[in-house]
């Protein structure tokens, strides 16, 4: 009986438990047009990676607490002083100083608008979002960048006012814990596990 791979950190070292790979036997690939001669083999491989969010970890943790964190360059002599980054950037791309982390949930609740969008009928393997996926890119007042995310309810269009929702119940601690609905959506209509 295999068990899920899990990891924690102690003394800044990874401590790993469970199975990080699963064995599946390989099989031959044969040519049905040519006397079933051997052409190749399948190479099954299932493996779990260990990935650090580093300085962005606070962003992903905060989603599970219903908060949208951003960063801002506060360096005195930087041309980009005061510029807000969402997506969150650990360092200012201009002066490379460490940015200040702050909570922009309120800005997002009040000023988010759809800049562009795409309704996508297809996905790749390992997708967990419901299709069609409504990709949206969101503008915030006073923020020069445009965040990519997805919409859980309603139909996207340019300029539509949206508000963030957060998967506080059973969060995945990934970017899919953040989603958006049209402003004015009723709490009871939110998808499972999500709240404002």
């Amino acid at each position, binding site marked *: 009986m295999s068990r899920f791979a899990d990891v924690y950190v102690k003394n800044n070292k990874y401590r790993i438990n469970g199975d990080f790979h699963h064995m599946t036997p390989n099989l031959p*690939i044969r*040519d049905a047009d040519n006397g079933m001669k051997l*052409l*190749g083999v399948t*190479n099954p491989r299932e493996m779990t990676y260990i*990935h650090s*969010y580093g300085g*962005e970890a606070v962003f*992903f943790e905060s989603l599970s607490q219903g908060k949208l964190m951003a960063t801002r360059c506060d360096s005195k002599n930087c*041309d980009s002083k005061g510029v807000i*980054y969402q*997506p969150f*950037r650990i360092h200012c791309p201009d002066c490379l100083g460490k940015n200040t982390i702050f909570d922009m949930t309120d800005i997002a609740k009040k000023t988010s608008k759809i*800049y*562009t*969008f*795409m*309704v*996508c*009928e*297809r*996905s*790749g*393997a*390992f*997708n*967990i*979002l419901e299709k069609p*996926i409504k*990709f*949206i*890119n969101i503008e915030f007042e006073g923020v*020069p*960048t*445009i*965040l*990519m*995310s*997805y919409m859980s309810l309603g139909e996207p269009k*340019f300029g539509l006012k949206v508000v963030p929702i957060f998967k506080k119940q059973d969060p995945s601690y*990934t*970017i*899919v814990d953040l989603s958006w609905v049209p402003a004015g959506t009723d709490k009871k209509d939110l998808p499972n596990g999500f709240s404002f």
Partner: protein
Amino acid sequence: MIKFSKEQLKAPRFLRPVYLVTAGQSKFDRAMPDKRTEEICVDALTMAAELINVSPAELKSYIHSCYYGHFADHFGDQLLGEALIHDRLGLDPLGNVGVKTGGATGGSTLWEAAKAVASGYSDCVLAMGWERMDEVPTDEGNFLISCAADKDWESPLGHIYTGYYAVMAQRYWQIFGKAEDSFRRTLAEISVKHHGYARMNPWAQAPMKITVDDVLNSPVVAYPLRALDCCLMSVGAACAIICDEETAMKLSKNSPHKPLRIWVTAGSHSLRPADRLNMEIPLLPNETAEQYKDMEKRFPGADRYPGFTGFLGARMCAHYAYGMTGIKDPTEDLDVIELHDAFTISDVQSYEDIGIRPYGQGRTYVESGDCYHTNPKTGKPGKLPSNLSGGLIGCMHAVGATGIMQAFEVASHLWNRWAEFHGDEKRWKKFDRQKPADWTDLQVKGAKRGLAISHAGVGSHVTCTVLMDPDHVIKKDA
């Protein structure tokens, strides 16, 4: 606001003239169950030798260093595949390096190769690119492609790259295309053109005789983009031999064509469109600030540059290439081009980024008929034919090879050998493909100068390869 320094904007310079002597490519297909990657690379290199009437062994004896373009290690499931191919081509112990810049890998490989010759490090180099996208089925392939997006901020959103790309198409479609049926039909026309030209190309993977309505009725991938608006997934290899002048002449002693001058430049922009900051449009030589003053009036919503509608990386590599070679107006100065038509809409966006048309007016390049071999409106030669190979939509997108395939295609026109290469009955037979009864010679008559754009991701890396007949260069000291 992004600002550039004078130092960053300087026109690049090669320290000596660089030449494309020959090139070659394998068959392109969705899958090649009967071939290992080294076999298709051998096919490409052998062809390059044949074109200039030397044996592969003799050609190899000139090669001094090698540049290998192979993007996706996880697709081919082989790290250090460059070392494998290098050994199988019998080129050990020469120095070699792998190049990987997404969809621009082929172009970037030429960039590295050309610089190696320009600097004097090598007098003759091999640029070889390949990709093997048939080791996983399509869904898993889409997952692997999505790994080229930001893995924390984008990839978990559906694991589908088309989605991250298409949000830009949506913006272009509504702002510059004004969501007009006529614009949608223009996009479809590009697919018809590229699948149609692919019919004349024995290497091409997706030859199709289709109509605008066929494109408009194909399944939606991400509205307004449909299946027939999208590029292919391919297996294939392409190579180029790049030399200094002396070696180029020596290698060409029995060649029916002369070596071509080659220049390659590169630009870049963020992996995530989300991070794009607003800036002034960097102008190309055929543009003025005046012409963009009333953009927002003509195209309501055109409030940002590059926003989600322009590719700054493409604009920058064109800026560098035009400065380097003396091109002032691509439509006037060039005879044939190959663009990176990952999607019909990004093809239109490229027309603007590289200055064939001003921003917002890309569609007129198609609608005027200028982009055709023979202008369907006038019956006369198109002013600047594009993607006569069939491009990524009709010919192939074996990522690491694509930019080199484009250079081969442009070169075949400048060498006046397009019909010889593409019309050869033996080649059609060898590839087990039927030469169409209405096969048409697409040679651009008298072509002397051409260009190819190789483009990655959402514009993260873009290269511009310029080829010119050495007797028809624009800037004498380029």
